[in-house]
């Protein structure tokens, strides 16, 4: 029992550290592709410390509630995803719960966005919803493919099933590729970072966030990165113990980063068309194959 309580506390911290590490690493790697020395790895931490000390202008209660809600959603989500050995609440919840909790973060942002009377934010939120619509379809198909293949909805069984022999990626290559193709959309990085496009709509939903709100959103973004990649590793790469799990996450993250570095931003309609065209078909075919065999 005590181990469960400790792991409930430890897992979010680990997720936070890994999230910040990934953020710092992403800025460093992208900088190296730009042929320059990027900022130190600990730069996101410095940014958060600075933002906490900055004066934050709030637009009323609902505005604050929205930000806290989205952060809370991400933290809970972290608890449901097994990270190597530690899986505090994973046994009680399963993939359906995760899908449901995935929606809390955009909801929180929408809530606070509505309060701030800035047109950019409303456009940002509409884009976020459309993008979510865009990548939910292939995401669900690939999850269904995994569930039907292993005939279970609980993540822990899926991970246990993969321990014994080959990982799921060799059985279900198509859903894995589909999931990987929409990973940038879920993370909100370059080809799909329409939501927070600084050039077009002045960093989208984060327009009104000053000091502490921005710190909370960065933390929420760090959690979000951890969640998506950990989910991918659990579903398709059968996360082993702590170290191998981290290495797999690192590899997946770096591959996603390369896509980010070399592609311009798509328009929202192109993004959705792209998400529905290739990844959706692959995931569907993978689902059918999983069904037949």
């Amino acid at each position, binding site marked *: 029992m005590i181990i469960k309580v400790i792991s409930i506390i430890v897992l979010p911290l680990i997720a936070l550290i890994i999230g910040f590490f990934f953020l710092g690493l992403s800025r460093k*790697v992208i900088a190296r592709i730009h042929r320059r020395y990027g900022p130190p790895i600990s730069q996101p931490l410095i940014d958060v410390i600075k933002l906490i000390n900055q004066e934050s202008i709030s637009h009323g209660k609902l505005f604050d509630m929205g930000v806290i809600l989205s952060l809370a959603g991400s933290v809970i989500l972290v608890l449901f995803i097994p990270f190597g050995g530690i899986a505090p609440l994973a046994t009680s919840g399963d993939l359906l719960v995760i899908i449901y909790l995935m929606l809390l973060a955009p909801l929180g942002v929408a809530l606070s966005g509505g309060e701030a009377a800035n047109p950019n934010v409303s456009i940002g939120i509409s884009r976020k919803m459309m993008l979510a619509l865009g990548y939910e379809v292939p995401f669900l198909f690939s999850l269904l493919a995994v569930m039907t293949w292993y005939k279970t909805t609980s993540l822990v069984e899926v991970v246990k099933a993969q321990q014994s022999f080959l990982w799921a990626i060799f059985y279900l290559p198509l859903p894995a590729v589909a999931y990987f193709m929409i990973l940038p959309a879920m993370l909100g990085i370059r080809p799909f970072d329409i939501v927070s496009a600084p050039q077009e709509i002045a960093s989208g939903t984060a327009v009104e966030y000053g000091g502490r709100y921005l710190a909370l959103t960065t933390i929420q973004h760090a959690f979000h990165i951890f969640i998506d990649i950990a989910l991918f590793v659990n579903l398709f790469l059968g996360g082993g113990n702590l170290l191998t799990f981290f290495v797999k996450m690192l590899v997946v993250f770096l591959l996603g980063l390369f896509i980010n570095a070399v592609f311009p931003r798509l328009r929202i309609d192109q993004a959705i068309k792209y998400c529905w065209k290739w990844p959706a078909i692959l995931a569907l075919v993978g689902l059918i194959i999983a069904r037949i065999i």
Partner: protein
Amino acid sequence: MKEKSKVNGKPSLLGPFKAIKYLFKKPVTLRYPFELKEPSLRCRGFHLNDWDKCTGCGNCADICPNEAVTMVEIPEIEAKPGEKNERPQIDYGRCCFCGLCVDICPPGSLRLSRDYFHIHFKTSTFNLLAKDEKIDKEHFLPADKYSVFKASLAHRKKDNEGFSSELKYSLFEPKRVSMPQVKPEERKLSFVEQVLGYSKEEAKQEASRCLECKLCEDACPAHLKISDYVRAIYEDKPDESLRKIFEDNPIPAICGRICMAHCEDACSLGKRGEPVAVRWLKRYASDMIEDYKKTLRLKPAKSIDKKVAVIGAGPGGLSVAYFLRLKGYTVTVFDSLPGGGGMMRIGPPPYRLPIESIDKDVSHIASLGVKFRFNTTVGKDILFEDIYKNYDAIHLGIGMTVSHSTRVKNSEKAYLALQFLQENKIGKKVKVGKEIIVIGGGNVAIDVAREALRLQHIQYPEEKVITKTVSLEDWDIMPATKEEIEDAKAEGIQFNPGWGPKEIKIEDSKVKGLLCIKVKSVFDEQRRFRPTFYEEKEMFLKGDMVIEAIGQGPNFSFIPKELFKKLEFTPRRKIKVTEFGQTSIPKVFAGGDIVNLNLDAITAIADAKRAAEGIDLYLKGN
């Protein structure tokens, strides 16, 4: 690398991943505070100014499009006549680092350095009095003590000169418009005027060179309005430029030819290039207009019944007469020579100052109503006492008329310079020998030598003739102007500087030559004229004629004893005058060579101007 531009391949999805190769290459960033970038040799940063070369002319302040440069008075620099003690101060809240001030700077003292960092939270620190590492030791640090982190206007790197001015690309024209002159071979044969004067375009071209920095006006003893009359010539309005000259100088034709041109020594263009030919432009202005009276139409003021006597019609006398006449006084001028001009009439030979130009100026002053009494030497034809009695004020402008003699053994055989010049110019020509030796190193000596050379060529057209000069002073301290010495050398006159006359050798009452001894030093430590010689080193110069031109002295013989006793003198044997030219005798004023030390025409005119003020005050005052 130059494949054809039509490689418009189908845009691929996987192509861009080639960019990942840079992940493993060395980044190109220049990590600034730790790796420094070497600024280029022509970098345009903050200003450096070499204070000894800078003349404070203010051209950089005039050219600056943003009025960033202001001239600031610097008390500790002593203001010489040709240089102001102002230095440019640059306001970096206005400066656009264009470097125009560097290109216009005549002495080339203003330069831009290669450091350009100055960050401060107070805007008042953005003014910089441009200095150089020679003057400002503590702000300029050697390379090891200089650190980029503390970079500011007060913390700059030593010898860090960037954009500096080059004569080829300067905004001013360094070379002078060449004056058409008669060639040396031709001019030594006759007395034709050497300088032929500018044509209209040449004068406009030369006048366009003046940057109007007004340094020349401070240097000129008479403070002529030089930049105005040069601009008038540029806008080809010679009458307007003449009017500007006549405000300070009534005898432009004379001054245009023989002035010592202090202005050209002070001209800031002269520091690196050739100065603006101010004297020749004044001469051009006076030559262009034949009849001053018609163009200037100067009308004297309401006539006052006071009478003023002017003794000596030299430049000083003529100017006093002109100024007082304009103020309305009735002026009479006494001169022993047949015409006006005093020393100018007899001194400079015709190739430098022809008689017509003297008469042109004098006749204009006469036309204003000044009465001239020529051929009347005071003390002989008319006594000084009755002048003193029946004239309300007297101006002494008698100048130096007595030529000194070296009083060396049988020096009575030698000619004196002034007589020699006087006879040649207005009397009959003097019979000269084949080899002439001229003793002396000043302008008068050079005139005598060149005139003697011309006479030799006229009187012995084919034979070989030589003129030699012997002067105590060596090349560097020879008092004659550099220009004169060059012209004389071009005409073939031999110079023997640094030799003193010892004895004139005589054989059967004909001069055989001059025995000279080597000079050790000319001036003693208080710069007084006390020559010392090496007794043993001697040299014998063959020559059948000797002319002494070692300086002139005043002749006060015509003043009666009791008045002469009241006159006070300065230690250097000059008349002591107040700044209005009033001598110790209240009624008597004085000016010209007998008062000042420059011994040239323009200083005489300056004294005359002040004396005219003095006389006016004296007559109105009490």
